[in-house]
């Protein structure tokens, strides 16, 4: 792949004596679905927060869509979407109000807002619920809505932090259909997950152990490399060596 959308080089974050992420390096190409795996506390969220510009790295280099994560955080923010582990749309706003608000602050004009929200509500089959408060809709819908809002402004990369935690299998399947859809249109997807079946859906995956990337390849190559039949076992072999216990 010639065009790298995410480039990280020896990216490190320390909290006092604790090294949350330890000199991680990787590249992610345009339109790639990049899975980020690791046990709880391995440093996935910290790495993702640095790439999103929410957290300043201690050392190392990285660029997102060509912008430097130290100096050009605001340009980066225009070009990324982010969906945090914790649901973070406004519960006390309606579905439509949330769409308009986030679309609006990403600079969509009225025309775009109107057509995009109509399309979005149609795709999610939420037309009848558009004027309902977000607090009243089920978790699966909330997650799909949060994803749709995160990609509303058509960013170069979307970061998803455990987007399907606590979601039923059917909804998870639909969620991954949505991920494939945006990746197909050239958006890069950076996703963390604990579900190994989801890991199989990714183009490439990296597995973090104790703040370091211990493996990085396509799912089939990884299985090959560790000589095991499933991703579950790959993960188990790597993660059991972990010294950090949550």
């Amino acid at each position, binding site marked *: 792949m010639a065009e790298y959308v995410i480039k990280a080089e020896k990216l490190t974050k320390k909290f006092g004596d604790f090294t949350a992420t330890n000199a991680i390096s990787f590249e992610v190409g345009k339109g790639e679905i990049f899975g980020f795996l690791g046990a709880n506390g391995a440093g996935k969220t910290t790495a993702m927060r640095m790439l*999103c*510009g*929410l*957290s*300043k790295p201690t050392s190392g280099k990285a660029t997102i869509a060509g912008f430097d994560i130290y100096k050009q*955080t*605001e*340009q980066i*923010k*225009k070009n*990324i*979407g*982010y969906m*945090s582990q*914790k*649901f*973070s*749309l*406004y*519960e*006390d*706003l309606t579905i439509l*109000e949330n769409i*308009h*608000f*986030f679309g*609006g*602050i*990403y*600079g969509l004009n009225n025309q775009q807002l109107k057509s995009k929200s109509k399309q979005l509500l149609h795709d999610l089959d939420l037309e009848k619920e558009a004027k309902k408060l977000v607090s009243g809709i089920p978790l699966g819908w909330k997650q799909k809505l949060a994803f749709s809002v995160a990609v509303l402004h058509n960013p170069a990369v979307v970061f998803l932090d455990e987007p399907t935690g606590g979601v039923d299998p059917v909804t998870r399947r639909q969620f991954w259909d949505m991920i494939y859809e945006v990746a197909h249109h050239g958006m890069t997807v950076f996703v963390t997950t604990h579900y190994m079946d989801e890991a199989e859906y990714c183009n490439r995956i990296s597995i973090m152990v104790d703040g370091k990337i211990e493996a990085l390849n396509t799912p089939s190559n990884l299985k090959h490399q560790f000589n095991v039949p499933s991703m579950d076992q790959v993960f188990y072999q790597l993660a059991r060596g972990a010294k950090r216990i949550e």
Partner: protein
Amino acid sequence: MRTLKFLLKKEFSQILRNKTIRVAIFVMPIVQLIVIPFTADYEVKNINLAVADHDHSVYSRQLISKITASGYFRLTDYTNSFKSALKSIESDKADLILEIPSGFEKGLIKENEQKLFVAVNAINGVKAGLGGAYLGEIIKNYNNDIRLKWVTPESFSPFPVIDIRSSNWFNPEMNYYFFMVPGILAILVTMVGGFMSSLNIVKEKEVGTIEQINVTPIKKHYFIIGKLIPFWILGNIIFSIGLIVAWVVFGIVPVGSLWVLYASISMYLFAILGFGLLISTYCDTQQQAMLIMFFFMMIFILMGGLYTPTESMPGWAKIISQLNPATYLIEMMRMIILKGSGFSDITPSLIKLGIFAILFNSWAVFNYKKTS
């Protein structure tokens, strides 16, 4: 600018959708403004008086009836021993003892001189001080009456007498409502504005929505302005409701112009809301913000000259009260509403509030970090 429009729309929908906040904004100030002024009255009434009368004469009874007729005192005990009067004080039935010595009448008429003894229960300092002063005044009047009756007035008094007559300007009837209501209104605006703004950003931190804001390209100052303006508008609405209550319930119509009044409240709101937002950027939970704000609220209220004049505070306290935005508002409100002061009179205070506003808000923008 367009970003700001979306921010404002969002804030207003959230604020107006929250029932508790709606009540807190519109109902509580009205209730407080109606109830508190009736209780925050400096005039001390219903002082319980015990009289130990050793004389039982016409004159002693005249004196007592003059005291009770004043309306400030309630005769709760009338005995002939000081001991039993003291018991009334000990059992909290009396605040003051007036002891009339035996031979009071005789001494007064024949020797032209007599002594009375007043004992005051000073547990409640205000009641004791004012009660003693009232009683002294009444006895002095009584004394003058007697002198007029019995002592032939001399054409020239042997001693020069200075007779002081005071007239109360701007509040001729010394109506306490006129004095207290503008101050209480100032405090209400401070409380509602200060708490609402201090809890707002921190709430977004608690529920996690701030993360979603922080990954957007939103500008920090837009975010703060987007928080500031809705509360500024609400503050002005509360103030207007308060003015209407002051007019309907207490008959207070501002003597000064409404323009001047709104200019001062507007400037003040920028300062106090900026302070609240600043607290909000430092805290992680609403509980922390609430506790810190409470600490400052006590200072704002008690050191702002609402109950006690700032001029009579010790030097160090005067400096603190100069750094208290509420001091300026309370002062300006009284000046404009009661005295009719114009722009030129309040300009120094307006400038100081403007400095506070700029300081607090830019500090809040500076301290709000999108990247940790």
